[in-house]
């Protein structure tokens, strides 16, 4: 091993305030050489890349955005662990690059002065210098560097300005001892507040010496924009309008790609069926895997769009305003305005939503947010809503022009939000009793979102969803298929024959059509005797009062793994259990035509509504359970969540169904 200064590969940490341009600089320095993972045991994103320094290379570690290193939040704790070399597989950094926003110099330099105190050489990368100069402010970088005692380099990621110089400085400083103890805390008397005071005094002096602010032309563009966007009346109206537009866009823009995906998986299933000899393998692949996983991946376009919008709102700076507008409402039920973002993300998927709660510093506030996040109608519920509405409420309007489907959809979202707020209110007064959390938050200046950052955020989050489809949902689809496929019913040959028959029908996936040619198999004989069917029968007495039969019971049990599995399970159930006639080629008509054992129609609009209510409120998602376990580090909180949510779901569905019947609905 060479001496420190001659190491061929360095470790560099990139630290900076949120919104300081850290991500843009990171992307510019590392190009496409990046990988994203999590820090061990926690869900803080660990981003690193390779930075080419010229004669040697470095691993650049992008620390989470921070205001301070006092370790009051998880992000700060992690950042501190990285800097002090306490994280497994990350050597202590040779140099820290401190990203500082020139337009917000003093507050940004606060973190820098804290970094001085770790004995690691620091280089300041000054971002947003173009904006700063456009405002006719002047800065003497050499003087600032002299006052701070560390190199300061102006960088502009778009114009490649300063990149080479930054690399040179880092190269030169690696292995040198830093000049600590720095006078940045001025040998302050003990006491944390006095220390903060001393650091800021040091900063004020350094900035006064080197910066000339142009007081005359104070732009404050963001304040002007906010005159409208956080206006007492218009602000809230615009927020509602933005959310409506986002949801509307998600539904309308995603239709075409979703149809295409749906057709694609259908064609894939047909192709597989045609190219394989009929039998268990073909059944597993087509009815189990392709139907199951495909039925879920179809929703990818919606999820991509939602994440796209959230990323844009986040990157422009609007999400912080939304939290500002809504904090009063949120704090009335005891939540932090910051809970808005996790809850909003949970409309896409509770997993990133729950992961986003780590910005909430207080543990009780964080837990309260985690415990209600799954009430937000996530995209996995959409297939369920869409199916039910498509089957029973399609084409109906209220007042002649508002579609009943849209109203029901809105009602489901509202139901979830309302229950979440009530639960939060109760939790914050009982189990998670605590004073309202502090709300001290920067409202970052409005910026044009960086296309790259937006797409990166969107893809990282969407990838979580795809991974789930490839793992959890794949596994469940196979298990479920097996539970329904075994044990084989007592009429050997009949199933095999029908498969043979369908194999001869080139390209047709409707494989049970020929069943009627054999000795007619009692409807659903296979499913009834299967393991899944027996389970469904076992729980039937419990779900009877909700208007569900044992087949829905099978689908319900399966959907506790993941909600969207309901759709694939129903497809599998109605394929396996019932010979489809020529008319019922779609799941919707299969559901409409389904009869129970006594020949009565199973599904009515009331059943559909009850099922939707159940899905709004029940905790049916293995991945969420796993992530809650990881985030709360407690099985009791996790099980509590599953229990109380499912209890509420049962009660609400019971009231819906029985209430509906009392009102005369079927």
């Amino acid at each position: 091993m060479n001496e420190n200064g001659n190491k061929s590969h360095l470790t560099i940490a990139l630290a900076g305030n949120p919104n300081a341009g850290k991500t843009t600089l990171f992307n510019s320095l590392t190009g496409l050489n990046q990988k994203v993972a999590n820090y061990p045991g926690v869900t803080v994103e660990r981003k690193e890349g390779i930075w080419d320094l010229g004669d040697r290379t470095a691993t650049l570690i992008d620390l989470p955005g921070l205001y301070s290193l006092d370790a009051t939040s998880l992000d700060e704790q992690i950042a501190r662990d990285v800097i002090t070399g306490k994280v497994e597989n990350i050597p202590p950094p040779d140099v820290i690059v401190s990203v500082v926003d020139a337009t917000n110099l003093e507050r940004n330099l606060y973190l820098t002065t804290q970094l001085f105190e770790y004995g690691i050489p620091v280089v300041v990368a000054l971002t947003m210098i173009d904006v700063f100069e456009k405002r006719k402010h002047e800065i003497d970088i050499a003087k600032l560097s002299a006052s701070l005692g560390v190199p300061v380099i102006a960088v502009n990621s778009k114009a490649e300005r300063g990149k080479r110089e930054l690399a040179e400085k880092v190269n030169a400083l690696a292995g040198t001892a830093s000049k600590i103890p720095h006078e940045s805390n001025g040998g302050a008397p003990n006491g944390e507040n006095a220390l903060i005071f001393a650091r800021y005094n040091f900063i004020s002096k350094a900035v006064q010496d080197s910066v000339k602010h142009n007081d005359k032309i104070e732009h404050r563009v963001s304040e002007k924009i906010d005159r409208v966007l956080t206006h007492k009346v218009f602000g809230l109206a615009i927020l509602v309008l933005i959310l409506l537009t986002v949801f509307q866009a998600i539904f309308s823009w995603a239709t075409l790609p979703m149809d295409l995906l749906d057709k694609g998986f259908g064609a894939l299933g047909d192709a597989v069926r045609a190219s394989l000899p009929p039998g268990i393998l073909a059944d597993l692949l087509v009815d189990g895997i392709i139907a199951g996983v495909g039925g879920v991946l179809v929703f990818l376009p919606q999820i991509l769009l939602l994440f796209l919008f959230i990323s844009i709102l986040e990157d422009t700076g609007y999400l912080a305003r939304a939290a500002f507008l809504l904090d009063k409402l949120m704090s009335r039920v005891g939540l932090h305005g910051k809970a808005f973002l996790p809850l909003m993300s949970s409309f896409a998927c509770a997993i990133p939503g729950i992961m986003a709660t780590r910005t909430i510093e207080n543990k009780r506030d964080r837990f309260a947010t985690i415990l209600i996040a799954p009430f937000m109608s996530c995209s996995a519920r959409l297939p369920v809503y869409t199916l039910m509405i498509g089957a029973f409420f399609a084409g109906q309007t209220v007042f002649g022009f508002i579609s009943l489907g849209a109203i029901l959809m809105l009602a489901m979202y509202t139901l979830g939000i309302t229950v979440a707020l009530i639960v939060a209110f109760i939790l914050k007064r009982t189990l998670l009793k605590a004073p309202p959390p502090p709300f001290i938050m920067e409202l970052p200046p409005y910026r044009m979102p960086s296309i790259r950052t937006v797409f990166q955020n969107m893809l990282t989050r969407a990838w979580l969803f795809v991974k789930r489809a490839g793992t959890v949902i794949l596994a469940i689809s196979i298990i479920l298929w097996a539970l329904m496929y075994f044990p084989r019913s007592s009429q050997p040959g009949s199933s095999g024959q029908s498969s043979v028959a369908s194999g001869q029908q080139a390209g047709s996936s409707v494989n049970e059509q020929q069943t009627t040619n054999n000795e007619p198999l009692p409807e659903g004989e296979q499913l009834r005797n299967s393991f899944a069917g027996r389970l469904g029968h076992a729980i039937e007495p419990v779900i009877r009062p909700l208007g569900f039969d044992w087949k829905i019971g099978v689908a319900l049990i399966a959907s506790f793994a993941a909600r969207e599995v309901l759709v694939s399970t129903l497809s599998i159930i109605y394929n396996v259990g019932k010979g489809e006639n020529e008319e019922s080629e779609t799941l919707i008509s299969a559901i409409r035509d389904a009869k129970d054992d006594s020949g009565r129609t199973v599904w009515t609009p009331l059943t559909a509504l009850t099922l939707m209510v159940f899905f709004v409120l029940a905790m049916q998602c293995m991945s969420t359970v796993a992530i809650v376990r990881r985030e709360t580090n407690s099985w009791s909180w996790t099980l509590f969540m599953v229990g109380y949510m499912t209890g509420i779901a049962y009660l609400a569905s019971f009231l819906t169904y029985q209430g509906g019947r009392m009102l005369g609905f079927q």
Partner: protein
Amino acid sequence: MTLAELAKGESRTVLSVRGESLVTRRLMEMGVIPGVAVRMVKSAPFGDPLEINVRGYSLALRRNEAESVELEQVATNE
């Protein structure tokens, strides 16, 4: 007079930040320390939280948090 009572558009210098709580510390870390000028920008639709300008950036905080920031008696001109 505390920061919570500062009128919209008015600027004053911070005299002291009371308390040793997490809130106090967070406020100070964000740059609200004695001697710095703060300007009231606005309050949110329901009267809370507040938006102030400090050290050239916008900071949102709740009314009860602003109460721990004592201001000087004389208004400062910006």
